[in-house]
């Protein structure tokens, strides 16, 4: 059996340290080892985006990266984006605009959308559709997901303006 590796990560602001086989996937680390079950598994071949997390500021599919590759990095999952007392505008917008049905894709969708809006705070519909194409939803047909992201963008821009 290959030697276990010593891995340190920061997940949602919390330092984690553990020994893992080199083949351990990050999604497994999150879900099984750290009990962070927001990111889901839909394919394990990097097609569906249900496992999307943010690593050092970039959207990454956690099923396609080893825990060892995330060594020393900062990982954010849906649990780190917002909770009952500090809901992210995207979380609210998905509810307001019916951007989810079964909810299985939702953590990955919202996590990806946070990055999309960071990179492009004023996306057109086309840019949203292109920027979200790595995340599959089987339920909604995307129309209301697009709407939710547009609504969140508007809200976030207004808040930013008000703050300035």
């Amino acid at each position: 059996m290959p030697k276990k590796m010593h891995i340190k990560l920061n997940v949602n602001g919390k330092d984690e340290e553990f020994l893992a086989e080199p083949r351990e996937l990050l999604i497994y680390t999150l879900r099984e080892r750290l009990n962070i079950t927001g990111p889901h598994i839909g394919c394990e071949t990097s097609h569906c985006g249900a496992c999307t997390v943010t690593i050092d500021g970039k959207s990454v599919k956690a099923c396609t990266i080893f825990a060892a590759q995330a060594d020393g990095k900062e990982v954010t999952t849906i649990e780190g984006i917002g909770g009952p007392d500090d809901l992210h505008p995207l979380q609210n917008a998905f509810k307001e605009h019916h951007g989810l049905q079964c909810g299985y894709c939702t953590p990955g969708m919202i996590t990806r959308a946070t990055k999309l809006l960071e990179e492009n705070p004023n996306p057109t519909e086309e840019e949203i559709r292109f920027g979200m194409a790595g995340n599959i939803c089987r339920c909604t047909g995307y129309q209301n997901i697009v709407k939710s992201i547009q609504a969140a963008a508007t809200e976030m821009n207004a808040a930013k303006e008000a703050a300035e």
Partner: protein
Amino acid sequence: MKDEVTREERVDNLKGMGCSRKRVEDARFTQGKGNYVDDVKLDGMIFGDFVRSPYAHARIKSIDTAAALEVPGVLAVLTAADLEPLGLHWMPTLAGDKQMVLADGKVLFQGQEVAFVVAEDRYAAADGIEAVEVEYEELPVLVDPFEALKSDVVLREDLVAEDGSIPDGAHGPRKHANHIFTWEAGDKDPTEEVIANADIVAEEEMYYHRTHPCPLETCGCVASMDKVNGKLTLWGTFQAPHAIRTIVSLISGLEEHNIRVISPDIGGGFGNKVGAYPGYVCSVVASIVTGKPVKWIEDRMDNLMTTAFARDYWMKGKISATKEGKITGLHCHVTADHGGFDACADPTKFPAGFMNICTGSYDIPTAYLEVDGVYTNKAPGGVSYRCSFRVTEAVYFIERMIEVLAIKLDMDAAELRRINFIKKEQFPYTAALGWEYDSGDYHTAWDKALKAVDYEGLRAEQAQRVEDFKAGKTRKLMGIGLSFFTEIVGAGPVKNCDILGLGMFDSCEIRIHPTGSAIARLGTISQGQGHATTFAQILASEIGLPADSITIEEGDTDTAPYGLGTYGSRSTPVAGAATAMAGRKIRAKAQMIAAYLLEVHDNDVEFDVDRFVVKGAPEKFKTMKEIAFAAYNQAIPGIEPGLEAVSYYDPPNMTYPFGAYVCVMDIDVDTGVPEIRRFYALDDCGTRINPMIIEGQVHGGLTEALAVALGQEIAYDDMGNCKTGTLMDFFLPTAWEVPNYETDYTVTPSPHHPIGAKGVGESPHVGGVPCFSNAVQDAFRPFGNTHTNMPHDHWRIWKAANELGLHG
């Protein structure tokens, strides 16, 4: 006492039927706090996974598990030999056949379950699977059902008598060793006679390809046998948890009260999660053997290759008409490829589901349908992928036949539909193949749809485009896809609908708490449809308590009343009706309490939004909240304390939602790429409970229709290798490929449903597939196309263009 709040405000406060109430489910899902089966974690839980067959048809010569048991972390390996003493190496299917749980001497499809490896974690299970040695002897493979019906190769030796004769199957006589059943509806001879003597006859053969529901979450379960108390708890992705409990009891011998089945949050179902799969049985056995909770979760490849395919119907049609276009007869023959075991999820008496709704929305006086089920070396399944049982196939068939007939008549397909629709005054309408359509107003819906899209204008534009194309000014053709569909949902009346002998009623149980809030439990289970939101709305309107004060719970067989689950758009038609009826029982008791409190006779009070008022004296009233409290704190002569009700609802008939769809598409002849310019969907699902959720269902159903029509398929090569086992090959549309949809509606309430609702989740899929397909075919109609088979992926569209000589 003066009432400060207006009646309108009181209605709004309830958030009852008809309003776009936001979903109560969303808080947990948007914060990553859903609880799906793979999120279930129990102390000491271990993991099971399958050794699967690489061959589509082979004899198993030996299985050696010794090396696997040496792998660190591996705890046990189960084979058929281990299950046989328990009688669990085979299990009954929903279709009256039986299926191997683990390969018993042979395998019948690629990916079939051969051994179950149980290990401390998923990695160890994967290592164990690698170490199991199976020796196979390959057998000739049958992937073509027509060949299977001629072949000497016997797939199911267990279904052939020792003298070589073919015993009857669950659905009557079988014609060949690889034949499963023949199922008929309608009148054969009269139909053939009408067609033989008709002015016009159009014929077509079409293949509705095999595909898969592919919800984003795969199937899985956690089985936990508590040996101390003798209780088995089974969490799983079950669309029908109560039926699963009964099945587990029947096949395991455990008494039903000792089994608790829980469907937690489900990440989409679309029919995939109706069946009972070997993974469930093996997990239960493994938990009994090891004394530990066992989790089994499919990976995507397992899911696509082994559980629950859909469709795979080879359909041959003849339709006859007068010269004016009045349809006189319809003949349909289907060769149905069911794979290695007949595991179709259909009501017992309907081995081809409701395929006999294939006369569609049209007044066709004579019709005949014959379906032959066939075994092949493909995965078993045959579920209704986002449709009521085989309705998608039926509607695709008739909507293509109408187009083909229109070509033969040289007539506009919209007009042909119009002159053949069942008229409003003909409802309730008994179709030639037996169903009694409860209600409809097709002409109104059709006219509204055609007007909304400016149908005449579109046809003119299309004609101009053809001119331009011929003149070399463009390489893009324009297609106008039409479809008008009638669904048949809400299975169903117990007199003719059952699954494994269980009548297809459904149920609701309501408990009102003293302070005027409530919990209601149902026999169904949401997989994204938003039951917790909409069923509370039905109740709010029925019992006058705010939807926000009503908790809806489903999916735990220890607490919920028995029901047959959620599929076939049956939740609203059946459980929704049960909810309304249980609510009415609450209201009846509340009326007596109110009358007592107001010191009048029972008949002197009437229900008004959220209260009972004294007739003619609206200032004298008791609110439902007050009544609820009284039910618990006062001794009322002749009335038991408490306020609870339960209703088991056996629907008198199915419901028949319908709709009119139009798709406008541009097709690049040189690349085969279709671009959807516009999609208009008018749905009539009767009374509308939550318009926001209805629209969401329509968007989702249309997107799955787009997928199926334009590229999604489960394909096999000649060796029975599944070529589409990953999301690389199996088409799931992304936001980039999907258009915005325009939704519209008419409302024709179901006359026999307590609130007039009909169900909507599947309509857009049923109506959408032919609409997308018709758009592609219509683009090529001016160049001589009558029919090409789906899926219309870029390659096939290019090929169609090529065959019509459009590439110069």
